[in-house]
């Protein structure tokens, strides 16, 4: 079977440039009267069968598409800015000020149980890390902030986090502050505190973000 090479080129160009799949009729319209569109399509399909793009039919119309086995090429990681939820911000702040802190302690401070994934998501940000295990019943994991946290928030040291007076001065805390209310002076000393034990080898695997809830 011999296909007119000009017809082949025309159909090829039309299919390439079209934003929509093209039907046989639409293609025939552009070809000289009596051209065998089916034969052209068949020849094109055969030609592209081994190549990086393929000619496929969708809903009875024809279009070029990346060869299926190469579709992985078409995905690309795009950095997408995402804002932290209120809960995540609160949790992050509590970890920053109160570190080393366990999940139960965070919940006690927040007054609500940590939502599924909040800690996991914060781990994903790279701003918090597992520090060790609290020397207490159940040996819960302790959380603390990372260097990336300091970098992201432009803090030279964790101690630069504003204290009670600063927060009041900035108008972030208002009104009557009850006696005994205090903002802790945070420390992210990498050395474990007396109340912490080191993590074991498999803790990190156990506590990977996806399993965290």
């Amino acid at each position: 079977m011999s296909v007119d090479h000009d017809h082949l080129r025309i159909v090829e160009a039309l299919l390439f440039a079209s934003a929509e799949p093209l039907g046989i009729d639409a293609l025939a319209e552009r070809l000289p009267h009596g051209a065998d569109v089916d034969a052209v399509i068949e020849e094109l399909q055969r030609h592209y069968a081994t190549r990086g793009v393929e000619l496929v039919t969708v809903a009875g119309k024809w279009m070029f598409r990346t060869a299926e086995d190469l579709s992985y090429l078409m995905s690309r990681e795009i950095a997408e800015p995402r804002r932290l939820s209120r809960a995540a911000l609160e949790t992050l702040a509590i970890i920053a000020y109160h570190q080393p802190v366990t999940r139960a302690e965070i919940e006690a401070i927040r007054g609500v149980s940590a939502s599924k994934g909040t800690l996991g998501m914060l781990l994903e940000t790279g701003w918090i890390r597992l520090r060790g295990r609290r020397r207490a019943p159940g040996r819960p994991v302790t959380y603390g902030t990372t260097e990336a946290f300091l970098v992201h928030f432009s803090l030279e040291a964790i101690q630069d986090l504003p204290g009670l007076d600063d927060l009041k001065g900035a108008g972030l805390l208002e009104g009557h502050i009850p006696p005994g209310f205090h903002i802790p002076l945070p420390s992210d000393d990498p050395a474990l505190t007396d109340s912490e034990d080191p993590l074991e080898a498999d803790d990190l695997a156990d506590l990977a973000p996806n399993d965290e809830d």
Partner: protein
Amino acid sequence: MVEDRDAAGAVSPADAWEAEEQLRLPIEDGEPKLIVDVTGFEGPLDLLLALSRAQKVDLTRISILELANQYLYFIEAVRLRRLELAADYLVMAAWLAYLKSRLLLPIPPKDDEPSGEELAAELARRLRRLEAMRQASVALMARIRLGRDVFQRGKPELMDIENRPIYQASLYELLSAYADHRQRRMITSVRVERRLVWGLQQAREILERLVGELDDWTSLDGFLATYIPEEERATVLASSFSASLEMVREGRLELRQSNAFAPLYLRRARGDLDQPVFPAIRDDLEP
């Protein structure tokens, strides 16, 4: 200065390009044939270029003197018909008149000004440059152009985007979340205890119920002590006293106190209980 014609909106951009082809040539058989309408030109340089093209010689061999004459003649004729000729054209006319004089008169010795020939050469160069840019734009538009002659892929497939989140939060957001939260907890941690207060209404109701029993002087303290637990006595005393004052005013109770801080005594009023002394006030006081 004059502006491009498309600013004036007189000529649509689509026509503008063709307009050049239709440009009426100002000279026939050496005699200027005047075009009065300067709106066909984009400034004096454009007009000079159109005039020079009419000399039908290469721009490098154009006679600037002749061109200056034609321009001046043209402007003069236009001014006879239209007084509002843009200043640009007049400035060019003045300059060309000056150029003409430099070209025609002998150069005075010790003249630092550029010679007429130099000025003419510079004008010719400017005309050539404008002409060149015009031709360049034609050549550019005549190129194989994407979207007109050739087409890119109509349905690009790049890319199924896999979003890799980059988390963002400002220090302000972090701090205000923390401060808000601590503030909230600070307030909710104040335990609001049940207030041990008898309202006036409550005291009055009780007094009214009891008033029938008060046939003789009875100490308010002693009276309340019978019924009220110790820790509530102060508030009950205050409310009951206020309520009893009201009832006294209504003529239903009598109150007696021997001196300051002495026990208060009360008893049922002697008058008719159903006919208050100050019914109007009583109405006022009814809640």
